[in-house]
């Protein structure tokens, strides 16, 4: 009998709060996906190439998990609290009929356990499918073909997801049960009569509203004008933004009150009633609205960073040199004679890069002047190297070999031409300024002789990975190079794999194979595979975590909004009965509830939208940098995609709330 009742109550709860349960299932999927990151194929692969960075990321995951667990805890606590509140009468009745408190709480506890278990079953099944999909998509998107995909279930992730969620769910139930146990049965039975409606005084509402708006403006201002220069100002942004949002909602009731008074309480139909309902929701639940709005804002910010990161990493990864060896000339000669190595290599050449022998000489002053005048963006300017750093030269033959290895050509320089080298991930603005300059036919001066620049800028990485990082260099004829170089020898020796090797096995396995041989022979080197690893790692860590948090916050904020509205509506159900008795049509009441839902969501989404615009501008001025060459259409497409996702989620939630409320009204 007892268990039958528990089962029945649990089922009724799931039906009544279906939106909440769906959201919890999504939260569980998110938990598992995050926790199982370590065992996902892409991470396994990255562990081989970037083990240190991966370890760092994996160390961050528990922290992210705990933070998201904390947020989910508040959501569960909130939802359970209001679910139990709406059943106070029922509990009072049980107690009056002689049920022991311990048994009552046992019943509530079991109901929650049952529902949590069901959420877990659905959530984990969904999560396993999702992680499989992510793994398959990564293989496809990266086009690496290296990740031998296999079906995996991470048991530690499973365990942490189950225990984390059950703990959050049952602990919140326990806390609320303990609090309810202090209430007398009579108070439980007559719970709904004790509600009161009060508004803040007009003065204090207006004060809150004005101070709130000022705080928000300060936060926006700091974000746009100060944050990119002074990063710690983020704390001020958080402080003023949060305080501003809370005060704004606290005081917003004043605007509604003014609207009611302005219409002289003269609105016909249910307009006054609607405004009062909205005012009550805003005044009584201002902090919940503020928290939802802030969470939505965080979600938008994380999604923005996610988009920025995924764009930033994609472009940073063109194939260049396969290996760079750091060895002496003799060792390099030994390599050249090594048939095992050379059977896999089509080109081996020294990378001749040097500073100019004479300190302070300026080969192409027009370049620096143009950059100094043409580059306005603060970030771009800060990445410009100083004069002394930029005086580097690359020999024509070394660069020609590099181009040849990549299947490109460098037009002959002859004795009166040079070419400009610029690192591949430079800022778009610098690239544009230089491009314009070269098109206008600027010249370099070496030992009094003028050299013409080739019209194209060369950006292929001169080493396999990041051992040598230069911003500019001038590619000069070999004869000039010999005259100007400092005599320190090549910076490294580059190897390029044979095309057949790459075609046979795919690029990464071919790289791994040669890397193994070089490691065995203890030749110090770096490999292009590290570059792939790093960019993939950045994409995974940056974008993945950003998207994860963004999505989770989005779900939590919306669930909290939906639950708050449903609860307020459930509490005020008696009013609709009275309205019907006073002659309101059911269709009027339905329209009234729908208008309340629209205004309620609009109120939260409105402020969030305004804050989001400023947040996105702030982020693009500081943390997120769209790399040179990223297509505008792609940026726009991704942003539109994220925007559509947001709209879709809002539509789903608003639709679900409307459906639930429609049902409630039909039952009156």
């Amino acid at each position, binding site marked *: 009998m007892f268990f039958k009742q528990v089962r029945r109550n649990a089922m009724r709860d799931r039906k009544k709060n279906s939106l909440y349960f769906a959201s919890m299932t999504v939260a569980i999927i998110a938990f598992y996906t995050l926790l199982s990151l370590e065992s996902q194929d892409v991470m396994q692969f990255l562990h081989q190439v970037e083990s240190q960075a991966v370890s760092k990321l994996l160390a961050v995951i528990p922290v992210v998990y705990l933070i998201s667990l904390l947020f989910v805890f508040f959501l569960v606590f909130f939802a359970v609290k209001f679910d139990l509140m709406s059943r106070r009468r029922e509990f009072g009745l049980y107690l009056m009929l002689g049920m022991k408190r311990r048994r009552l709480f046992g019943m509530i506890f079991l109901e929650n356990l049952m529902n949590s278990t069901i959420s877990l079953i659905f959530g984990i099944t969904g999560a396993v499918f999702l992680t499989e999909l992510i793994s398959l998509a990564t293989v496809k998107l990266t086009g690496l073909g290296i990740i031998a995909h296999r079906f995996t279930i991470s048991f530690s992730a499973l365990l942490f997801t189950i225990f984390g969620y059950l703990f959050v769910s049952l602990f919140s139930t326990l806390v609320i049960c303990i609090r309810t146990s202090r209430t007398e049965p009579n108070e439980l039975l007559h719970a709904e009569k004790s509600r009161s409606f009060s508004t803040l005084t007009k003065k204090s509402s207006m004060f809150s509203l004005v101070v709130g708006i000022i705080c928000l403006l300060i936060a926006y201002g700091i974000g746009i004008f100060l944050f990119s220069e002074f990063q710690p100002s983020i704390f001020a942004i958080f402080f003023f933004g949060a305080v501003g949002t809370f005060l704004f909602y606290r005081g917003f009731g004043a605007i509604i009150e003014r609207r009611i008074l302005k219409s002289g309480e003269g*609105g016909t139909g249910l307009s006054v009633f609607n405004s009062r309902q909205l005012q009550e929701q805003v005044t009584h639940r201002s902090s919940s609205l503020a928290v939802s709005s802030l969470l939505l804002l965080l979600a938008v910010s994380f999604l923005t960073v996610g988009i920025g990161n995924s764009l930033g990493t994609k472009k940073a990864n063109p194939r260049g040199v396969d290996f760079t060896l750091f060895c002496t000339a003799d060792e390099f000669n030994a390599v050249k004679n090594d048939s095992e190595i050379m059977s896999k290599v089509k080109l081996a050449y020294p990378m001749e890069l040097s500073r100019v022998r004479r300190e302070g000489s300026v080969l192409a002053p027009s370049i620096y002047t143009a950059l100094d005048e043409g580059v306005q963006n603060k970030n771009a300017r800060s990445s410009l190297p100083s004069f002394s750093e930029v005086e580097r030269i690359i020999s024509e033959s070394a660069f020609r070999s590099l181009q040849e290895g990549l299947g490109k050509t460098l037009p002959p320089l002859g004795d009166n031409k040079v070419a400009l080298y610029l690192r591949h991930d430079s800022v778009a603005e610098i690239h544009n300024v230089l491009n314009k300059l070269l098109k206008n036919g600027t010249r370099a001066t070496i030992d009094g002789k003028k050299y013409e620049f080739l019209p194209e800028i060369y950006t292929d990485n001169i080493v396999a990975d990041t051992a040598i990082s230069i911003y500019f260099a001038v590619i000069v004829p070999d004869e000039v190079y010999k005259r100007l170089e400092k005599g320190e020898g090549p910076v490294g020796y580059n190897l390029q794999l044979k095309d057949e090797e790459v075609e046979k096995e795919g690029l990464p396995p071919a790289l791994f194979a040669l890397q193994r041989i070089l490691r065995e022979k203890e030749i110090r080197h770096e490999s292009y595979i590290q570059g792939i690893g790093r960019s993939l790692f950045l994409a995974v860590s940056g974008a993945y975590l950003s998207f994860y948090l963004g999505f989770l916050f989005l779900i939590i904020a919306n669930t909290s909004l939906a639950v708050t509205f449903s609860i307020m509506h459930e509490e005020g159900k008696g009013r609709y009965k009275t*309205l019907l008795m006073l002659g*309101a*049509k059911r269709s*009027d009441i339905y329209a009234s509830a729908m208008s309340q839902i629209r205004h309620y969501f609009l109120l939260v989404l409105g402020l969030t939208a305004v804050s989001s615009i400023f947040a996105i501008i702030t982020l693009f001025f500081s943390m997120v940098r769209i790399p040179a060459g990223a297509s505008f259409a792609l940026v726009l497409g991704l942003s539109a995609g994220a925007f559509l996702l947001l709209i879709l989620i809002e539509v789903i939630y608003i639709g679900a709330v409307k459906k639930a409320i429609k049902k409630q009204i039909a039952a009156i």
Partner: protein
Amino acid sequence: MKNDKVLEVLELSKTFGEGESKTEALRSISFSVAEGEFLGIMGPSGSGKTTLLNCIATMIRPSSGKILLKGRDIQAFSESETAEYRGRDIGFIFQEFELLDNLTGRENIALPLALHGISPQSAEGEIMRLAEVFDIKTELPKFPTEMSGGQKQRVAAARALISNPAIVLADEPTGALDSQNAKTLMKCLSLACNTVMMVTHDANAASYCSRILFIRDGKLFHELRRNPETEAPSDFYARIVVVLSQMGGGATNVL
């Protein structure tokens, strides 16, 4: 001939449940309420008086019989006619006031008008007149939680009267009030209302009526009339108490 009957109840029956659990709450009751009458309905618990009131208020549908308001059959009303009827033709006073706790006193009173597309501004004069009669002028800008029980019920009564209904239906209006507040309310009601039909247990409240129908087991049991000009409420009260004690069966029903 002028038809001064505001409400006519003809052969009204209401049965709840089926088979063995069948309960006949009303058994073919007929009566009418004339314009200007203050009709009381009394009877023991379970006698069917609240069912009768709910049938008239269109909160439940009768099993058979007719209810005519000013000659119109209320069961034949469409949904919008029913809403119109509830909001304009009748005024309802509940035992538990049923004020909307998020509207001010003024907004609560104006609600039935607003629901039917009438701007409450145009009825400001009427609102002030009723506030004067019910002594709730200072309560108009307050929310229900800031009012006493008596004040709430007087606001609710003003709300019932704002659309100038043909008849006011009151369901135990003094049920949740102390005797002083009950007395004030009844005085105000008898002053302000034209035609009232009130269900009550309270012999004190009933003594303000001009006629009382006593119901037992779903049937009319007795009727008392008072001539307000010749009989004081206190004398009428004594007669009511006698009928109530008879209705209980006197001493014969005591086990």
